[in-house]
């Protein structure tokens, strides 16, 4: 996808949000019928994440948290219908799951001020909301998690699951072609410090570029995420294993494929023109 089209989509998404036009992906799909739904969905998710990231700091101050919590308790005490937090999130234009987490955290702080609450505790409560002893909150949080497509344990497990599916797809393709590789877990067990999803035992070439490793990303490769992946992952793989391939299954901005010569190639599907190493073909 060209950068220009991407910005167009971005703009559309934001328009839809500001107009409050219901299901974004459906609307987007109508406007960009040529683009895969998954791609649009991934872009949407990234947009939401961006928005949440922006709001996070604004909401995560002690005063603001207190305010939100007060508002929540008041509404519950007033006997408002369940779904208080979900409605609050909508008003705040914030992720319901994140809001739930924030409230839950505050709740724990106020109910048991002596106990030091750590992140994993909160996460386990989120993962199983039945463990929250306050029944109203438990239910509210539960509703929030269900409502949220981007954050929260449910959304996370869906995301992980998708990632796993595509990684699996990748491995399947490799097996089909009889390409030998080591996967992440094997590498980690051998004490590697940085491990791509796939490290090829025998390099292959795609469109004339040598590939030593493959990283599968079940998301759209936008600039922000690609930069951070480059810094944290791709360059590290490059340093250790040489040139490689990144597959953004949901597409990427074409302009980002700028390190191809140097040895980081981007693709949105499993490559079909693969050259195998065959020393005998050189004669």
């Amino acid at each position: 996808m060209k950068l220009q089209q991407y910005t167009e989509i971005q703009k559309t998404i934001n328009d839809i949000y500001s107009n409050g036009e219901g299901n974004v992906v459906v609307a987007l799909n109508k406007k960009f019928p040529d683009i895969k739904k998954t791609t649009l969905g991934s872009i949407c998710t990234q947009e939401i994440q961006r928005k949440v990231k922006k709001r996070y700091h604004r909401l995560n101050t002690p005063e603001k948290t207190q305010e939100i919590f007060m508002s929540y308790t008041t509404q519950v005490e007033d006997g408002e219908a369940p779904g208080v937090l979900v409605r609050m999130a909508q008003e705040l234009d914030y992720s319901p799951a994140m809001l739930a987490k924030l409230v839950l955290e505050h709740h724990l702080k106020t109910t048991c001020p002596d106990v030091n609450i750590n992140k994993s505790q909160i996460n386990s409560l989120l993962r199983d909301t039945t463990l929250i002893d306050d029944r109203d909150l438990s239910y509210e949080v539960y509703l929030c998690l269900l409502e949220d497509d981007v954050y929260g344990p449910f959304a996370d497990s869906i995301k992980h699951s998708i990632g796993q599916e595509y990684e699996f797809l990748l491995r399947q393709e490799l097996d089909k072609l009889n390409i030998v590789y080591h996967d992440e877990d094997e590498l980690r067990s051998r004490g590697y410090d940085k491990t791509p999803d796939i490290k090829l035992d025998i390099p292959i070439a795609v469109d004339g570029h040598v590939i030593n490793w493959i990283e599968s990303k079940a998301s759209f490769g936008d600039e922000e995420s690609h930069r951070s992946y480059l810094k944290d992952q791709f360059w590290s793989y490059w340093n250790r294993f040489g040139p490689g391939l990144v597959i953004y299954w949901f597409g990427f901005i074409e302009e980002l494929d700028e390190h191809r010569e140097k040895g980081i190639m981007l693709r949105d599907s499993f490559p079909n023109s693969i050259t195998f190493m065959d020393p005998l073909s050189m004669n």
Partner: protein
Amino acid sequence: MLYGSSSFVVGSVLQSSSEVTPSKVPSSVRVTKYVSPRKTPASRGNHRRRQHCSSRAKSLMFAESSSKDTTSSSDESKVPAVEQLLRESSLPGDNWGSPGSRVSPRERTHRSKRHSSEGSDHRGKHSEQRLVLGDFITSGVKQSKKKGSHPQGITSPPADSRPGSNSWSLRRQGSPQVLDLSDQEAFPVVGATPPSQERQPKRRINPTRILSPPGTGTSTPHHSKGKLFGEGSKAVFGVPYCQSPSSPFLAGEGGSSSTLEEERELLRLERLKRQGGDSVSGGKPEKLVAQESPPNQVIQKPVERTTDHLKALPDLVTNHSCLDALAEVYANLILHSFAPNLMVELYYTLQLLTVPVMEEPEESSGILLGTAHNCVYFAASVLFRVVSLLKLLDRGTLKLLCENPRVAAFSEELHRLLLEHLERPPPASFLTQAPKSPIGGVSFQSDTDNRNNFPSDQAFHLFRKQRDSFYEMLRVWEEGHLIPGWSFSRALSSRIHSLLQICPSPTNLVHFARLFQSQLLAMCRGDDDQCHPNQDQEVQGVLTVLRRQHPEKYKRLYERLVTPAQLGGPCPAPSFSGSQEFFRDFIITAASFPFNQHLKDVLVSQILMLSEQEFFTMEQEEGDPVDNMVREEARSVVLSLRLLAKFLGFLEFLPYQTSEHLKENVLASQIALRSKVCPPVSLCGALRRCAAAGQLVVGVTWVVELLSMVDPVALHTYHYLTVVMALREVLRLLPVVRPEGETGCSSCGRACAGKTFAPSNSLLLKLLLGWLFDLPNFPDGLFFVEVSEADIDHQEYSLTLTTLNTHYSRLCGVCLSLVGHTAHIKLEKETPQQDAMSIGELSPTKNCASFSPLKTPSKALVMSMVETPQVTPLKGAETQVVTETTHTLDEALFVDHQMITLCCPFVSELKNLLNESLLGVAGSNKGGSTFRKITPHSASDKSVHSHLQLQMQLEDNFFHNQPTSVRKTTDFVVERVSSNVIKTLRCQVLPSLREAAVEKLKAVIAEQFQSTPQGGERVRDVVQQRVVEVGREVSEEARARCGQITHQHCNGEVEPALALLLPPDISSQGVEVCRKLVSRCSREKVAAWVQSHLTPTLFCKDLAADADRLLRQAQKAADLQAAAQQRSSTEVTPSNSECVEVCPGVVVMDVSTASHSRTPQSPLDHSFSSPVHQPRQLQLLSKKATTPPEGLPLKAKEHLAEAPAPSLVLNTIKSILREVTSSPGSDLSGLVTRELLLTITGDVRRSLSQRQDVLLTSHPVCVPPLITSEIQEEFVSLWRPVALGGVLPSPACLGSILCPRTVMLVAQNPNVTHQKLSWKKIEELICLLLTTELLTPATLLDHSVALLRHSWPQEILSGISVCIEGVTRTALKQKEFQDDSTLMQMLDWVGWVCEQMDDLGEDF
């Protein structure tokens, strides 16, 4: 500052010219005791530098006078008065060069002195410290004239003594007839462009030297030292020499700050200037003009006369005899390493050769080198005498020399020799495969880099960061360093510091130092001055292929494009070029002592490890693929060692580098201080080890590289001085001509038992050592100091000397001159007879054992014949003789031209000099008709090229990511396989083929003699013709057989061998790839061997010898027969004991036999093919392609892609739940149907059981929603089989089924009946869970009690109560629960309480 600041001392010339005893020279020319100042500080007072030369000059006079006293009369009669020669050699001056370009000697002296006192410019240093041939020719004369009247001692120079070495020239200022050697046009400054260049016609590739304006901070070669330091090196700590724009020690800041635009502008101006002389000066920007003529720089005044390049004419040469004598002496000194720097002398000689001829007729017939004719004559004579050395230079240079019209005009012999040499086919070129890493990084090797190599997880983690950060810096550098204004320290210093401080523990630093070193090798080894971060991929591809397919072409192109035109003279200061800059700047910017220390450790250990590797070849000549591999490997080791040693030297001497001039007392105290400190590596020890292993060529190269980095003090100190002395001894071991035979010297009677250097090896070492001895930080005059007077570790020194002497043959003066003499004679006679001789040697009838392998041009053939018992059964005893003797690197033809160019890039200066002169001369004589045309060559068939290139890249990448042992093993197997194949060929195939061929010849001869019984010329001709034919046939056949045999070897036997040798964790596909690699490489190697050895000519030569023999025998027999014809005519065929019976089994195969087709009818072939049919039974370890990820307790047997994807199922569940919860009480039938739920649960099951890509962790999280769905009565039944089916083992959430949230859920539906129904369902579910033991009663109890803590609305409580009672009731029916009475009672109680509360609630 003439060129030629040769470091040769007048006395040496005088002395040796009279007696030709070069061995005595050093002592006779000793000028000053070389002692360290701490011993006799006074003698090295403030005058040290200044007076060195003048005092030496005096000493010369002294030495000469004494020698003359004893030998004058006889000598003068013998040699045409060398002294006289010199006396006459005042040269005409004024008519040379235009006035503007002249510098008065006074000024010159002054300048050179300043240079030296600032300790900077190596050129300045040249003239200051070392005497030049030019010096001796002029100055020697002057002084010798006066020697009678003013005898002076060494230690007592006159008070008003001339301040510099050139001071004597003041005295002759009055003479107009002196050829002013200071004339910058005739003898330009080293590295400056000679005047003839201005007449240079245009060429396609015309490398232009750029002098950038001073403001840009780029240093130029013409700058004085002080200026350089003022501007260029401010950012550099301890960086003494800035010599060229790519200055060696200069940190990034100063190096390349001029913009591209500026450079272009400069280029343009330069070109204009060259084209049009002064005409452009008007258009030049002011600053450029200023730049081009700095005050103390000689202006290259354009020569206005276009016709001044007259021909130098041999007829006009005067004083032949004197010049001859002088040339003889000079040539001997060059040949026998009595001048420190070979390169400087050669350069000077070529300068003399190409000296321009002036228009005015020279009248000064009495002056020796007074005319250009004489100069040229002298130069040509010298060149002729050192032709053995010249031949070692690269062909480009030789071609230019040969093309130089003066060579042909003045020395036909030389011309002829050069021509002949050039006509001979060039040695097969085997390019060192540029070992540059294709990846650009250092691969992660789990053996050395994984977690186990770190003390803690944290350290491991931090090193990961350090590694990534290092590469990030490299990327930043690659992108930025060529951008003008980019500053290394500004861009990277904070990163470097944080990298080194993030984890300063020794473990991490060691790891990092190792990474640093590996990366250094990966980026910089091989091609020093290449750094193409943005290489065009396609162009690179074409080049790669070119390199592979036409190495020679590639090399020429490479040299043309990459080698800088001029490198700052024949003795440039060391520099860090290309990517080396990054590493140097990193070290400087880091300025971290711990890092430096660890890096030093790593470097030292790596250097010693590499240096101790020993290499042996079987043959002295190139050709055998195995040997070539050894050589390649050794070359790669040498290149790595040089790089590592350079950086070790840099680190070691970094703290001492200074640009200040050290006063004598300061110097003395520093020397005293540092003399106690040992070098990081025992250099003498390393040299000894190398000498013992016969590979000084390895040791010396890196030691020189290390020492080239010295600070001004280091080489004065005890230990380093010892090393220098040892190196000086090594230089003396290096004759260029290999002595004939190994019998030793007849005159001195000493047996030369030791090894001798192969000529090209010797040349490389000569060049390198010469370069070292001429570097600015090399102490003045040290080369001439006697060992006994130097303050060195004598024990160490003599130990080294002994080692050298035991392992290498050293020739006395007489031997040397003999060698030189025979060389000349040989040279002259060599060509016509050589072929015949070698044929003779090849003949198998001769006793090959007595022949030194050195002399047999094709050892392979000789061996192939002798090694075959079946062919020469009578000489079976001789087969042992040919036990393959190993040759050390020093003896073998190890160094090639490419290596010389790589290690001594300055040799190209010779070429430049000749080139310029040729173009200049041609321009005037032929009107610029010699344009060099570069024929454009279109890259053909790109697809093939890119395929090859790709495969090569894949190969490199493959090895990169495998453990190093994989590559080593593969190489090893390749080596063995190709070696075995070649041996098979030699021992079995060739003899049989040859035998068949001989048989054919025999038949031919017999036939001929039958038709013409008397034999004679005609028969000979016929036979010879036949020999050629047969030779061709045999060679073709041999080649065909080779292909076959290689194929068989590679296909069958390699794999089991590899499987055994390769590391066990490599996959079977990996083994297969290695096998293919081995197969290909072995074939290539064998093919190369075949190409170079099994040529028709070789066979022809070989067979010709046989034919001769057979002919002789036949002739003899025929004569006998003719004599006895009358008596008996029964004997037709001569019986010949030497005639070998034909092997009956050998069938000469049809040439057309394809290399791969089987011809089982051949017995030989059959024997080869048999093992192939029965490959050894070696079981390969079966390698699994993939290991499934652990963690999933149940793993689907197979993957059904049609089964719903887990993410999809999860998504659906989530959305249904959302529907259910968000609209409680509403009619769900429309949205959430029974069917839908059924589908979903079915999907869950299918997705869990049928797909392999399920993440277990994702499911438990989502199970709670399942439970809440029990409000639908169907769900319970659905849930049950799922639970029983065990698809989801013990989900944690089931434990909390009766929790407030569930109750909340139930409460959401206001419909009471609905609630009741829900409770009923929950009850059923709980019962079910209890009976299936998914839920224990105790947990249920806990939950129930917890539930009661909350306040609930009436109807809920009753619901709960009903539910629990129901559960209790059901549970009680089951046996196992009855036992647990307490529990059941409790549950009962809970139900009751609920009821009570219910009632209470009703009451309220």
